[in-house]
């Protein structure tokens, strides 16, 4: 379990990093926290001939308030920083709640915000959370920056819209509307494992305590995080009673997702878990939106 030989560059600025990526193209891989890339290289499943190490780029590590009430997170911000940051807890409580479910503390000390998004593992938590929060991604190339909405960002298993010559540099989380509620739930065989199924929920109530908007996003069910669109539509304009939530959860589990089977969980078991988790997460999110949880 030793990686194949590679050249290693450690630029100290984003510009320098982009120059290397431009030079080496598909042969190069940017190295962020390395929690997925390094094991993959050690198994020799990935054999990039060039590694561009982003860790020396201190400018990419920050958590800043946005003037609109949202948050800006630098791509090299460590998961453990996000986990402990009071501003994240205040402005993006769904992210705050999710962090302890991500692997183990040692991994969170290395793992980065940008790395987990760019890696696009369908079992990762934060991509699903990003969809629930309607996040935006700032992608930088030598020609300049472009913003991509989360709905366009993930293309499939380990695939995003980032070009080989580009870097994800920032994640923007919009502000949470008033009367919103959130919840993250997942079921893993052991704490810290990739979830068999997970779900992130964001809901907003209108003045009449009816559901104005719901976003329910599953992880570990398909080749990318999957928003439960039919379930969300069912809830819109409805009073979120236990019955309405149960019906939405069942629709989410049966119609919105098409999970596969593997050695840990069959498709039908995943649907069962999805149904249970959706019900639990929506119930909790609506309770928080009403201010009773």
């Amino acid at each position, binding site marked *: *379990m030793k990686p194949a030989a590679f050249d290693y560059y450690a630029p100290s600025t984003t510009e320098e990093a982009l120059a290397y990526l431009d030079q080496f193209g598909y042969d190069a891989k940017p190295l962020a926290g390395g929690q997925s890339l390094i094991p993959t290289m050690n198994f020799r499943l990935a054999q990039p001939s060039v590694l561009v190490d982003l860790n020396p780029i201190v400018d990419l590590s920050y958590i800043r308030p946005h003037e609109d009430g949202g948050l800006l997170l630098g791509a090299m911000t460590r998961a453990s920083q996000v986990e402990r940051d009071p501003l994240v807890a205040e402005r993006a409580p769904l992210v705050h709640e999710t962090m302890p479910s991500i692997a183990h503390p040692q991994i969170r000390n290395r793992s980065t915000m940008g790395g987990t998004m760019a890696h696009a593992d369908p079992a990762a938590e934060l991509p699903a959370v990003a969809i629930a929060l309607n996040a935006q991604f700032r992608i930088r190339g030598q020609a300049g920056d472009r913003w991509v909405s989360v709905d366009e960002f993930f293309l499939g298993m380990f695939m995003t819209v980032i070009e080989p010559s580009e870097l994800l540099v920032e994640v923007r989380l919009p502000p949470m509307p008033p009367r919103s509620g959130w919840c993250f739930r997942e079921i893993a065989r*052991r*704490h810290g494992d990739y979830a068999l199924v997970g779900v992130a929920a964001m809901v907003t109530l209108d003045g009449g305590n009816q559901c104005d908007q719901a976003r329910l996003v599953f992880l570990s069910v398909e080749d990318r995080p999957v928003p439960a669109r039919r379930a969300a539509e069912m809830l819109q304009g409805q009073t979120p009673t236990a019955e309405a939530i149960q019906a939405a959860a069942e629709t989410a589990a049966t119609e919105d997702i098409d999970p596969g089977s593997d*050695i840990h969980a069959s498709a039908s078991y995943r649907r069962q878990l999805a149904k249970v988790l959706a019900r639990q997460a929506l119930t909790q999110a609506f309770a928080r939106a009403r201010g009773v949880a």
Partner: protein
Amino acid sequence: MTKKYLGQRITRNEDPRMLTGQALFVDDVEIPGMLHAAFLRSDYAHARILSIDVSAACNRPGVVAVYTAEDMGDFWKPGPLLVPAPRGIEGAFFHARTQIPMARDKVRHVGEPMAVVIGESRYLAEDALADIVVDLEPLEAVADLERALDPDAPLVHDDMESNLGSFVPQRKGDYEAAREQADLVIQRRIVIDRGAAAAMENRVLVAHWDAKSQEMTIWDTTQAPIPLRNGLAGMLGLAEHQVRVIAPFIGGAFGPKIMMFQPEEVLLPWATMKLNRPIKWIEDRRENFVATTQERGQIHDAESALTKDGHILGVKDVFLHDSGAYDPYGLTVPLNSQNHVMGCYDIPSYYSELKMVFTNKMIVTPVRGAGRPQGIFVIERLLDIAAKELDIDRAELRRRNNLQPDAFPHNHKIIDQAFAEFVIDSGNYPATLARALDMIEYEKFIKEEQPALRAEGRHVGIGVVAFIETTGVGPYEGARVTIEASGKVSVATGVGTQGQGHFTAFAQIVADQLGVDVRDVHVVTGDTAHFHWGTGTFASRGAVVAANAINAAAKGVRVKVLKLASKVLGAPEEELELADGMVRVADIPDQSIGLGELAVLANPMRGAVEPGSEPGLEATDYFGPQYGATANGTHAMILEVDVETMMVEIKRYVVVEDCGTIINPLILEGQVHGGVSLGIGNSYYEQLVYDDNGQLLNGSFMDYLIPRSTDMPPRIEIGHEVTPSPLNPLGTKGAGEAGAIPVPSLFAQAVEDALYDYDLEVLEMPLSPNRLFELCYQKGS
């Protein structure tokens, strides 16, 4: 002998070294000029080797040598049969097909070595593996244990008529007659899948041939340094004293490290002599999953015949045992299964057929438990089903069938792994059971708590399961005990150590015999330069066989101490006592001499050693038990199942253990904790999943799930019964494997009890939430 230390919960002598990183592990060995080996392993479970071209690999810079089976010449030969088949069982047969150092004509399991690259670094060696061109003709794999016996199944070993490697029928009494008389006959098929030993430290080896001193030193994570040395010396044409095997601190073994002679263990010593440079090989985790032996893997067709009041009249069990591609360890595992089906019960008739089957999977050799969990699972499941059918309380049914305290020695009248009749030396099974029931508050739980929980809609179940463990088998171990001029004591024994606390438990025995501080007893294990008689650490035998040898040697030193001190102090031996590192005349404290001073007197600079005497205060002695001491215990647990997700949470866990005399309860309880955690793994987490082509689908710790500390019950409550074994002077019985043995059967019972309204019968191991979901929701009920 005083009893200052024996039975005391003292902290471990070895821990300061372990905890401060001062303990030597094999990977710590660094020698100038050392090379590194990497193995090319088969990706196919079954394939014919047409050609292997290593020329490109040889030409890669940094590569020193590349070897295939062809390069080995006459040195290439199958390994020895480590445990021969038992003789004298009518109708039994056994075909030995032992492992080979590198595949020559065909590969028989994924992971079998085909070539080895030796290079200046492991990185370079692994790079060169990609340069080797192998032309393989894939063959249909024998992956399924049952289909392996189909008449048209492909053959793992082409020279055999079928994949049936062994057949052992054993009978006690007349089962068919018992069945005729029975009020109830229960028949079930039970399937137990494979798991890994998954020691924290993988196998590691450094082989160093020093041509100038003509000596071979091998650091190896082996459980059996002495047999390894003797065998390697023979293979390499060296005198035994030219080969030194050191098994230093080892990060867990759990059975597979007793396996000899592993391909890497044969190849590295051979190659270091050819190259005259030291070579290191570290098994990485990916290799460990395909290149280190595994266990479990049986299918039982079992039945029991009972009277309506729940007395067992007989048991019948016909089972398939998956041996993997080879069978170097003989029948140890399946014989243990066959033996343990009768467990701690009085079973008048028993008929069993053991069928050992070759498959294109990794070789099976003992893993902690070594066949016993399967046997216990069979009998305990049959009892649970009978309890339901007869409407008799589970605990009561076990009470009715337990061997009674006056039944010992009890002869189960079948042949065991030591090739003698299986005789249980001692025990108090009803007391063990009663104590466990008491600790878990069985009556209160089933009468009060459980009905209340069920009324709330919760699914909380209880289990209670009794078991035995044959331990402490021969042939023998030995030890040398020496009092040094410093007054401190050195102990050398041949067994290796892999975390069992030998440096403390053995020291406690010696400290009591010689009246010294336990911290002043320095124990050396597993180095053939220090002691070269013995077999190894396996079969829960260290505290029985090695400890009694150490006790005997310490007694021998004590005799010498008393004899010399009597002369020096001018007092009769019976008036002398050994304490605080001194020999003193009882009641006259100033009439004394320190042990160090005495040791100097025993090894004088002037004056002759008298005829018939030896210099120094030193003795060597051995212990070989007549037959193995059988430990027993009862485990009980309470668990809850979330029926929406089928996730299981263990709420309480109780162990009552009787392993005879306890040397150190702290160490014993650690062993129990470790065993229970493996048992929980075998029940709910750990399953090696092979596909139809014999490919392992979960060969990493991401997908092969080992319970972590956070997955363990919050506390394991342990009670001890002590029924000393009459078979050895210390009265000890082994405890190394016990913790793991009853857990699957216990887990099955408790899960069934929790899911009382799901009509669930657990006839397989391991379970998982996914499997429970299938069993409960998808069987059409």
